[in-house]
């Protein structure tokens, strides 16, 4: 015994359904093969449905009046032998089994980029090496890139996302050279040598310095400034100031103030290289280098041009304090547009600073040294200081830098009790 299905037959070329008008058999009734079992009405023809088997009607699934699609079940029959099964109209279609998908680790398509993916990656400066693909074989799909763009999380190589590089590096210029591979093997340490692993801030400093030195064509310039009047003025008020304000009035504050003033007049130095353009920054935010043990931080005095000498002195004091106690925040280090470096504090009299990428210049303020200087044909003992400027020669030329240094020199040489108020 076997149970067979009887389905709505195809009753004409455009007929896709039929309505059972009358059942000609009852449940439990015996029918022979080709006996009519139902009358069916379509909008083209009226026809009888013949039985496909000899056997007993088991269940009438469709009711009279029901409209049934061609191929849908109308009733079940119990047949006398299994042989009927062979005639079943329900030939199960043996679709080839879906080939087993390649293993999930398959990355064979990872580097096959479609035109759309390449174009979008180029337009948005996306490094495709850093993108995970969700397509077959690890292929990066257009949707993957669209997702990255809408989320705004464009992957960057980890080397450039270091602490001191918080400024927005808008354009990864194609001129950025690949890290030069050492031609010679790296030095090997020998017995008794100390090996210091390069990690953390040390590594960040190393990466930044390599980047600055390889990417930025540096040029240098030095002026000598007579700060005799400044020194006597500052020495005259420093004790009083310390007592009143609770922090030191350093020489450095005067220099920072003079630089901020100079940058206001020569904004070309307060700018950044951005690949196909130079961005001249409106705010004057001065980075100052603060050393601590093995670390070097470059916190920022924001809007230095708005501040008095006292205000600058306080900011320097606060930032240095924070650096020494490890309390600098990312915010303290962001947004610098020009760097002033107090190399004089180490006793240096001349140095060539490495520009703090992506800024366009850095000014080193060296030690103030008493020197014999000829004035009006006579020797005089004067307080002299060297200001050493490093400039990004893509952005700046000698002329404007010379004018800037001349102006800063002029400001500093004119600082004295009668011209300047630290408040």
């Amino acid at each position, binding site marked *: 015994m076997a149970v067979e299905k009887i389905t709505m037959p195809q009753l004409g070329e455009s007929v896709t359904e039929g309505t059972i008008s009358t059942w000609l058999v009852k449940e439990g009734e015996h029918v022979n093969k080709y006996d009519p079992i139902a009358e069916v009405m379509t909008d083209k023809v009226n026809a009888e449905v013949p039985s496909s088997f000899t056997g007993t009607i088991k269940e009438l699934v469709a009711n009279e009046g029901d409209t049934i699609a061609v191929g849908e079940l109308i009733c079940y029959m119990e047949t006398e032998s299994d042989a009927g099964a062979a005639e079943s109209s329900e030939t199960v279609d043996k679709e080839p089994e879906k080939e087993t998908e390649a293993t999930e680790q398959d990355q064979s398509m990872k580097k096959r980029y479609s035109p759309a993916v390449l174009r979008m990656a180029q337009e948005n400066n996306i490094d495709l090496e850093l993108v995970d693909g969700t*397509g077959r074989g690890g292929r990066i*799909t*257009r949707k993957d890139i669209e997702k990255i763009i809408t989320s705004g999380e464009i992957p960057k190589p980890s080397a450039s996302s270091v602490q001191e590089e918080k400024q927005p590096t808008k354009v990864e210029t194609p001129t950025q050279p690949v890290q030069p591979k050492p031609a010679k093997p790296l030095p090997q340490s020998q017995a008794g040598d100390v090996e210091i692993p390069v990690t953390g801030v040390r590594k960040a400093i190393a990466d930044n310095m390599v980047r600055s030195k390889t990417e930025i064509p540096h040029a240098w310039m030095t002026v000598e400034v007579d700060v005799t009047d400044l020194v006597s003025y500052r020495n005259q008020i420093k004790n009083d100031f310390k007592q009143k304000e609770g922090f030191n009035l350093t020489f450095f504050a005067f220099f920072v103030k003079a630089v901020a003033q100079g940058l206001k007049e020569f904004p070309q130095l307060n700018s950044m290289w951005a690949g196909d353009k130079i961005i001249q920054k409106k705010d004057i935010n001065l980075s100052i280098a603060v050393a601590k043990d093995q670390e070097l931080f470059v916190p920022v005095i924001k809007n230095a041009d708005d501040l008095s000498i006292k205000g600058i002195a306080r900011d320097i004091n606060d930032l240095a304090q924070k650096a020494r106690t490890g309390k600098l925040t990312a915010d303290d280090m962001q947004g610098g547009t020009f760097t002033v470096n107090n190399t004089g504090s180490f006793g240096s009299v001349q140095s060539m600073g490495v520009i703090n990428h992506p800024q366009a210049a850095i000014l080193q303020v060296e030690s103030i040294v008493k020197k014999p200087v000829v004035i009006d044909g006579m020797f005089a003992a004067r307080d002299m200081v060297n200001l050493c400027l490093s400039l990004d020669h893509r952005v700046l030329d000698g002329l404007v830098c010379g004018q800037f240094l001349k102006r800063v020199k002029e400001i500093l040489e004119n600082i004295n009790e009668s011209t300047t108020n630290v408040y």
Partner: protein
Amino acid sequence: MPVMSYIQAVTSALKEEMQRDEKVFVLGEDVGKKGGVFRATDGLYDEFGEYRALDTPLAESAIAGVGIGAAMYGMRPVAEMQFADFIMPAVNQIISEAARIRYRSNNDWNCPITIRAPYGGGVHGALYHSQSVEAVFANQPGLKIVMPSTPYDAKGLLKAAIRDNDPVLFFEHKRAYRLLKGEVPEDDYVLPIGKADVKREGSDITIITYGLCVHFALQAAEKLAEEGIDAHILDLRTVYPLDQEAIIEAAKKTGKVLLITEDNKEGSIISEVAAIISEHCLFDLDAPIQRLAGPDVPAMPYAPTMEKYFMMNPDKVEKAMRELAEF
């Protein structure tokens, strides 16, 4: 809005146009007293009489030729080929005369004929009752070929075809006649010939197709939506000349394009669609343009297994869509 089957929409378009304009008449084999073998012209003979619902001899070249002559003299004939497969004897009339006359006469003459024909397989119709013939006509400037996929489109486009001042071939899928039902306005409306229509908005893959395959694609899209695959479906509606703007827009939308026809693959309508996309969309493409079509064998076979192998169906469409989505 009443729900109509595809063929009822065709009949109501014919009837309304004949009521609107007495120059409109139908001619063809058994279209008069019998009302057509598919009943497309049912009732027209009774309402408009034997001179506007003309039974013709079994001679397709004459059906087309008489219609073309009448059209050139200002009538608006709607000629019926009983099956698209039988249009072949009329090809010379259609291409050499109807398609050319406006150009040949420098605009002195034109030929506002509509030629209707049921096409397509999946109905156990075998060779002479299953073919798709649109590609035969799809490089003949002067002709327009319309292949609607829904009752709504069928009515609006058939009215547009009848009112068009140049010859229009109007192919109706015979399996759609009673399979597809949809809401159709009872009042007069016309849809533009030459404009494709977005049948489903989606963002993962783009399907471009026409005729009954639109229905298969929509069914497959509903299933795939449950798996998170979101298909965009463009119905060409007019397969010649093609709506290039809509094709380019749809292809650019997802960059993954699947083109479907139940016609033989090589030289089909979708081959031209693929060419348009590759000309205009290179930098938006995320996958090779895929064509899903019938095999390059002469005609639809009769044996059910072989017919199934040849004929397009929702399973084949779903499989191709999923593969493209996963690429």
